[in-house]
């Protein structure tokens, strides 16, 4: 087990370097540097060449690429990503300010998706092949094909415009600070509903589908036949025997959910003006605020990496075949 964990961690370190190099190379292969772009945008053609050189020096843009990379990497490991090119605030502070909002949205969306999707998957596995199950499988499949921004528009159209039940956008109402404790909470929930639906329905379909196939895979095995033979009912078979074994592959899926949700956040936060890192990323891309773009890309990728390492280690604990198999490969 120790060998397995150590090997997994070593791979993770390599992947970390891969992530940082990929991000760095991508950003630096873009024609022009942020200074020239910023000058052009702000109409600062009046800057003297000396000032431009000073700025280049400050952002280490005057040094060869590998040196720039090392400078940046040294900062990145201590979570120091420099300053935003646009408003000159530390990148770290900007990200910390926004991350709670995104976490809140994604966490609720994840709970909804897993809380509904997994039971639906179990139900589908137990009722596999019946008419109702075939219909619902197709339904979830279609759900997965819905563009999230269209869903958001339809939801806004019905719940906010037509029936005026839920707020159009934003995280809280303008009068939020004047509300009492309970009303404040209700206000927050009201603002959460539409973004959470938009963010979670596709994930729900994925969870339902994946947990169904994971359970179905287990159901085919001999010990399930044995459980049935001893007289266990369909619910007991699924719940006690199949689901526990199916949980193992699902651990990995949960780890890979993070990048999906983050991708979704960019669209959802933009539509609902949710002031989180998705919106921050979008605005940073438009403004070519490279330090922010690089920091957000690396941070999410590393969080995903950590989650997948954790999932793999849990997987190793849960299923001895994994750690043995890894050695043979």
């Amino acid at each position: 087990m120790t060998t397995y964990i150590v090997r997994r961690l070593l791979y993770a370190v390599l992947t970390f370097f891969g992530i940082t190099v990929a991000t760095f190379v991508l950003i630096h292969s873009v024609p022009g540097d942020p200074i020239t772009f910023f000058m052009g945008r702000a109409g600062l053609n009046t800057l003297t060449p000396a000032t431009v050189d000073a700025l280049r020096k400050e952002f280490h843009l005057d040094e060869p690429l590998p040196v720039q990379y090392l400078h940046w990497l040294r900062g990145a490991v201590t979570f120091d990503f420099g300053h935003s090119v646009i408003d000159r605030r530390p990148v770290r502070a900007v990200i910390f300010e926004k991350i709670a909002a995104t976490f809140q949205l994604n966490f609720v969306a994840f709970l909804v998706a897993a809380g509904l999707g997994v039971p639906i998957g179990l139900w589908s596995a137990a009722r596999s092949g019946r008419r109702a199950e075939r219909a619902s499988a197709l339904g979830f499949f279609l759900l997965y094909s819905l563009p999230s921004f269209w869903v958001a528009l339809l939801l806004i159209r019905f719940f906010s415009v037509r029936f005026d039940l839920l707020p159009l956008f934003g995280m809280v109402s303008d009068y939020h600070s004047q509300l009492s404790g309970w009303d404040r909470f209700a206000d927050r929930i009201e603002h959460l509903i539409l973004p959470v639906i938009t963010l979670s329905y596709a994930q729900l379909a994925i969870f339902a589908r994946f947990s169904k196939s994971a359970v179905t895979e287990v159901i085919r095995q001999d010990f399930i036949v044995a459980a049935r033979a001893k007289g266990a009912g369909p619910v007991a078979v699924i719940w006690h025997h199949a689901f526990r074994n199916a949980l193992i592959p699902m651990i990995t899926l949960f780890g890979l959910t993070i990048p999906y949700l983050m991708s979704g956040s960019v669209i959802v936060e933009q539509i609902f003006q949710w002031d989180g890192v998705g919106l921050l990323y979008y605005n940073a891309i438009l403004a070519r605020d490279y330090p922010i773009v690089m920091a957000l890309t690396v941070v999410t990728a590393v969080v995903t990496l950590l989650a997948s390492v954790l999932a793999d280690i849990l997987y190793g604990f849960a299923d001895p075949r994994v750690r043995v198999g890894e050695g043979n490969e």
Partner: protein
Amino acid sequence: MRGESTWLLAWRRFRRSRLATFTLGYVALMTVVALLAPAIANRKPLAQKTAAGWEFPAVADFWINDPDIELPPSNPIVAYWPPVPFSPNSVSLGERLEAPGRVHLLGTDDLGRDILARMIHGARVSLTVGFFATAIALVVGSLLGAMAGYYGGASDWIVSRLIEVVLCFPFLFLVLGIVALFKPSMATIMIALGLTSWTSEARYIRGEFLRIRDVEYAQAARASGARDARIIFRHLLPNAVAPMLVSASFGVAGAILTESALSFLGLGVPLPTASWGSMLSKAYEHVEYAWWLITFPGLAIFTTVAAFNIIGERFREALDPRS
């Protein structure tokens, strides 16, 4: 009879599903609409007879991206018009935000442009991006996957690490970054999508090659002195084509979805070229009353994406011996 029997079997199983046959027909129809868009929705006549003889004004639009708005000065004696007599970019300020009616079947947008005409031309963008991005992903994915699976060892290790790195990035972050920082255009989008979505193909081909690289016919080819490239492309890869079509079908669906998301965010194909995604971002501005702006482009994206997903899914089932 060479490899046909497997194909025929899968095809027959596929055809058994009425839904699959229907969606395949729908995709074929969409493709025809996309290919013939300038002849279906155009302000210019398909063919007209003037004093100078016969002319075909709409034909020229097949070679330009944004069909021009000006009508040729002519006085036709006879003219044959396309079924939708509007160009996607012809602005008509007197007909702004008209609800669906007899003239504009699906209504107009805030510049008075015909929604149906824009959707017909938008199909070009969506399907072109979908097919080409998937083609790039397939080529990159199968080359890397084949290398990893066939040679194993160091190349397998490198490809596997590469896949791990790509999978760590949120997909849209990467695509959005590439498209926005280099210039948004159809080519950039296709390349960005292709270079970020090859991982599932690569993983699949790798697994397939690990399994079949030492089967008898590969050994026979090797024994008769065939070079690696020949074994890979001639003997092994054709055996993985059918399942690759499954993943290609899902790939096209995903690419169309992502392209429309990029266009919705304003980072897709540059305006005024009509695309389903950018039409929806217009809809967002008029969400209070113009329901037709939301409904139709959204339905177009949804049905097309769903069709490709259903085809992939049913084809996968048709190939699965267990089903």
